[in-house]
């Protein structure tokens, strides 16, 4: 079925073959998002400050940051709801300043909290939006029904939206965001307020969309487990500025301070070693100890990412008569990465402010431990200086 769309200059035919697995048949096939120095300033502060990010076509891109970091403002600028103060961005190949209408026809947005026409039912609501997107009525009805089925609202399709729970409204919001078969979807806290099953359902829908139709997904979320589960690339923002972007592994390496460092979690068969034993065994390494919930003694050591260092540790343990029960590489969780990187920028900002006030504090002075697995909180055995150098590198980035 072909529907004429006069809104596009480059190719005027949209090929809609079915209700869900369709793609806009235009010459512009980019699903990417790029921003360059994107800034939104209000009277006395910058909500978004020179943000430069790039999202590849087909990415599920996690956009992380603490409250007030500028995530929603960025999304609103990318969707054409807010005009940037300066800088520019392109969404699906369209300029956010010049091609605002074109962008709106190829994107979908699920805002953090959106309102609904409570007197409508879910089907009427979706059909209304399909009408606004100028989707032909028969196709719109089919697509609306398919989407309601997909988001699990088919059974309640004819109940007034006013009676829906928050979770049901969130599902309906997702269906609305998908009614125009967008090439790029922006999701602002999509699973906020949903029960675990609802969260899982929405994550599945997003993964299906991404895998089946290569829809680019721009996901802003505080649920770091969700981001690390769904996203292949991530950007972290703080105070409107980009802190870091890349794959989760890239960020992990950045947060670790060295691309060659790994953390090894070692469980030993023996009971707790004596006080002097471990410092002797792990004299070249940073480490910390803890007791697991099954009362096993755990040592977490930071070592270079090489077979040699792992083998050296094993050898030293055996020499000391400590039998290794289990040794595994422990990756920094996204949560650790997030806190590490956002704290680094917060510290940097604080130092800047202190410098301005003539009250300069030593960088390390106010840096308190936050997470067990943070390598800079390990006992130091000659590597502290190196860690500090790495930390400074992150700060300057």
């Amino acid at each position, binding site marked *: 079925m072909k529907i004429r769309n006069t809104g596009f200059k480059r190719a005027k035919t949209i090929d809609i073959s079915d209700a869900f697995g369709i793609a806009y048949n235009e010459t512009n096939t980019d699903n990417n998002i790029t921003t360059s120095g994107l800034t939104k300033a209000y009277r006395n502060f910058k909500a978004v400050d020179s943000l430069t990010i790039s999202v590849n076509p087909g990415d599920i891109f996690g956009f992380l940051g603490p409250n007030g970091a500028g995530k929603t403002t960025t999304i*609103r600028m990318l969707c*054409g*709801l*807010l005009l940037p103060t300066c800088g520019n961005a392109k969404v699906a190949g369209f300029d956010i300043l010049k091609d605002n209408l074109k962008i709106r026809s190829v994107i979908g947005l699920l805002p953090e909290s959106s309102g609904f026409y409570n007197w409508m039912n879910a089907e009427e609501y979706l059909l209304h939006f399909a009408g606004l997107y100028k989707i032909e009525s028969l196709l719109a009805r089919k697509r609306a029904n398919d989407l309601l089925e997909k988001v699990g609202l088919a059974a309640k399709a004819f109940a007034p939206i006013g009676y829906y729970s928050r979770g049901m409204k969130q599902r309906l919001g997702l269906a609305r965001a998908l009614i125009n078969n967008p090439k790029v979807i922006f999701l602002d806290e999509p699973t906020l307020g949903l029960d675990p099953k609802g969260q899982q359902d929405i994550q599945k829908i997003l993964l299906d969309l991404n895998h089946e139709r290569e829809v680019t997904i721009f996901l802003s979320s505080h649920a770091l487990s969700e981001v690390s589960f769904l996203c292949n690339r991530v950007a972290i923002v703080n105070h409107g500025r980009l802190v870091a972007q890349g794959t989760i592994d890239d960020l992990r390496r950045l947060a670790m301070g060295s691309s060659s460092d790994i953390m090894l979690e070692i469980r030993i068969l023996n009971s707790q070693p004596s006080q002097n034993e471990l410092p002797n065994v792990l004299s070249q390494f940073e480490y910390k100890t803890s007791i697991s919930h099954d009362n096993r003694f755990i040592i977490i050591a930071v070592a270079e990412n090489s077979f040699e260092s792992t083998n050296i540790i094993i050898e030293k343990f055996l020499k000391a008569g400590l039998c290794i029960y289990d040794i595994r590489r422990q990756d920094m969780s996204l949560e650790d990465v997030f806190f590490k990187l956002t704290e680094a920028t917060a510290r940097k900002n604080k130092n800047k402010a202190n410098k301005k006030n003539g009250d300069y504090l030593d960088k390390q002075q106010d840096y308190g431990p936050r997470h067990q697995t943070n390598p800079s909180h390990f006992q130091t055995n000659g590597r502290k200086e190196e860690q500090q150098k790495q930390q400074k590198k992150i700060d300057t980035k």
Partner: protein
Amino acid sequence: MLELFHREVSGSFYSWHGAAWVVAASFIFSLVAYLLLTDMELSLLDQGEMLFTLAEVIIALAIVMSAASASSIISSEIESGTFESLLLTPIAHRQIAIQKLLSVLVIWALLYAVSVPYLLVLASGTNLGPAAVFYVGLYGTILVIGVSLLSLVFSVKMKSSKNSIMTALMVVLILLAPSLFFATSLKKTEFGLALENVNPVSHAINSLDSVLVDNEKMIFQQVNHIWPIIGFTLVCTLVFMIFTKHFEVKGADQ
């Protein structure tokens, strides 16, 4: 093309509450007509003056209702969080505002339709019926468009129903004051005359007076009154065009 307009109108009349104002308007017209015909003093008025009184009520009611409706039509959507999803659709922002405006004009159309029988009944036995219907329709439509355009701008810019309704009603009060509330002595002062000269509602009321009471029914006799009313609406249109080019929602977390 007019999806938004359809939704707006169906939303307005979704339940009987939405149409309650039509019943209220009918009640007001009935009451005015009843008083004009049965009250000892009012019934002494000649038929032209009775028609003029009813026409005044119709115009005043139309202006108040359209101002109240238009001033909340966008701000209420902003407050309820539905406006953002509307702005995401590939409809130009001004087109959204125009479709909303059309839905306000439906209110006037209904009010006018309800008022016509009352005008015709009060005019029965005279040749003033068609002129009353025509001039009330003409002035009502132009004034309602102007006031609605202005109120819609308040709605867009203030983003708060309470503020925009209060501002729009204040403007309406200023527009209606010389005709409805000023004493004859005040009207004859320099201030009163100046206000009447620039006030489109005063021009409409004075024109209706001249048509229905003085029997000057020809349109060329009313040109002096029609141009200021059209001028007001053109100014309102210009303001509307300027302020509805691009709507911005608030940034988050601000």
